[in-house]
């Protein structure tokens, strides 16, 4: 068996994990599974693409940085894209989710997220058409790093970015006041309110973090693979599976779940063929639900 699958799996796994952080936080704090989360990824990627195009129109073409396929405009645009995606999530919450959440039926909110996801995705198809597009059409040479494994400079930078983002997220959740409030609220909402935690602030922080990380993951998919309106939908099942496998509410769990799913998918591609890749996430999801529904790091739900 070729060991290349380890690199491929780690990379797709870290993208799934980044997306799953948002899903696990929305589920544990806002108490619903957000089917529109994948579409935040796609919107983030297209938003970033538009900003890159705008910068290109303003300052002309820029040289890529070192061996990478992109230059500083993409980094700037990705930050702008993260802000835009966070705004999209907040607007959607204000228009739709917050009103339904107040009525107290969480499954209605799930349905609304399903409707919103369909509308968001089709809106992207309307604006950008359904044909795939790219940040860069250049081809990168992969560098051999031993054991028959090759990795491109882009992939290395993406792995490093994921590690930085996940570490930052973990420290934020453990050390910062907002992070502590978010954890308190997810464990016991009424008690959190009683001790004076500002609920609206916790909700806002959850949307901003989830959407910004979804955008980051979307941009990375765009750099490494391609940008399509359906990119988020295709990653939705692996992201849900990762969040559940890691244990709902656990940030490190979501990332570890993502890595496990990414690696199993990559291994399965070698064993049973690429066309069955999407079934792996489902198989893992069913196994977790049947054997250990609380996941690796989850607590039993009250």
């Amino acid at each position, binding site marked *: 068996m070729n060991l290349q699958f380890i690199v491929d799996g780690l990379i797709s796994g870290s993208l799934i994990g980044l997306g799953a952080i948002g899903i696990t936080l929305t589920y544990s704090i806002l108490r619903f599974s957000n089917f529109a989360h994948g579409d935040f990824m796609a919107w983030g990627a297209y938003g970033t693409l538009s900003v890159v195009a705008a910068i290109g129109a303003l300052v002309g073409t820029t040289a890529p940085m070192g061996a990478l396929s992109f230059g500083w405009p993409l980094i700037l645009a990705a930050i702008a894209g993260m802000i835009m995606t966070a705004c999209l999530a907040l607007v959607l919450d204000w228009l739709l989710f917050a009103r*339904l959440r107040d009525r107290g039926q969480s499954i209605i909110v799930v349905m609304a997220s399903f409707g919103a996801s369909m*509308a968001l995705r089709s809106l992207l*198809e309307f604006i950008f058409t359904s044909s795939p597009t790219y940040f860069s059409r250049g081809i990168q040479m992969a560098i051999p790093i031993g054991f028959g494994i090759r990795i491109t400079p882009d992939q290395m930078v993406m792995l490093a970015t994921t590690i930085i983002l996940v570490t930052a997220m973990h420290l934020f959740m453990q050390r910062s006041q907002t992070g502590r409030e978010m954890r308190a609220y997810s464990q016991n909402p009424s008690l959190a309110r009683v001790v004076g935690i500002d609920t609206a602030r916790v909700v806002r922080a959850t949307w901003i973090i989830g959407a910004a990380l979804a955008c980051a993951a979307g941009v990375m998919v765009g750099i490494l693979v391609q940008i399509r309106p359906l990119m988020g*939908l295709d990653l939705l099942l692996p992201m849900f*599976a990762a969040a559940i496998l890691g244990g709902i509410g656990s940030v490190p769990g979501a990332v570890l779940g993502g890595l496990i799913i990414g690696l199993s998918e990559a291994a399965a591609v070698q064993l049973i063929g690429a066309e069955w890749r999407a079934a792996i996430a489902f198989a893992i999801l069913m196994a977790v639900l*049947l054997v250990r529904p609380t996941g690796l790091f989850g607590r039993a739900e009250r």
Partner: protein
Amino acid sequence: MIDLLGYGAFFMSSALIFGLIALGLNLQWGQTGLFNVGIAGFVAIGAYTSAILTTPETADRIGGFDWPILAGWLAAAVVTAAAAAFTGFATLRLKSDYLAITTFGVAVVVQLVALNAQSLTGGPFGVAFIPRPFASLQDQPALFNFINLAVIAAVTIAVYLALEHLARSPWGRVLKALREDERAAISLGKSARSYRIQAFAAGGAVMGLAGAVQAHFIGFIAPNGYLPTLTFQVWAMLMVGGSGSNRGAILGSVVVWAIWVGAGAFSAAVVPGDWQARAASLQIVAIGVMLCLILLWRPQGFFGPHGLFGKRRL
């Protein structure tokens, strides 16, 4: 004139098939509160089951067992019910979101199998030559359309009556009790999980039957007939009709299908050729926004017992 009537029959047949799927969803969601995001997957299971069993023998794939059509429909309902029962069994002891996520996964996997298990499903090209009921009348198109409508209407009415009967039966009353006061129902010795699995399986059976009826109505099936858009349309139909009401499910299907077909015909006539694909996606945006607006402002729908035209109002 006869063409117009023939088209009317064709339109009603398509709408009533959606009505059948919506009836299945109503049993799952409207009467039991089980959220199914994988409708397209369950409909596809029924369609492929019946297609594989009833088509004449073919060399390039397994199946083609040449069964009678009714046997194929029955098998479709049974197989889909089994798939739904297993889905429910795995998830219904957990929070309701897990069922939603799992049904979403079922739809993904069914789509994958339909596309890739070529020796069983014909892959992207699908299954053709599915026998149509009363095929000997095919050379008289108008009559054939009406016969088709009659068959589909008969199935719809039969399922409607069965579901109405079921809702009033002791079994249906347990579902109602579970919905309104779960603890009280459990304290009377009713197993919430087991009743929910049964309701989910029964709803799945109706969806599978609908898929089979549709496959035999069109005579051809392919994986791209079972995309998430289908799930989404059926949800819009049930929500417009009013979840909880079987009559609403059917009426909502006819109304939403009319809007859908009308909007499609309108954009085909008005929108220039190279924008057609984009206009089609705008159609889906409109339905998505409509679904959200109904959830916000009229969660009881329009045609149910509590709707605009119902007997009693809330």
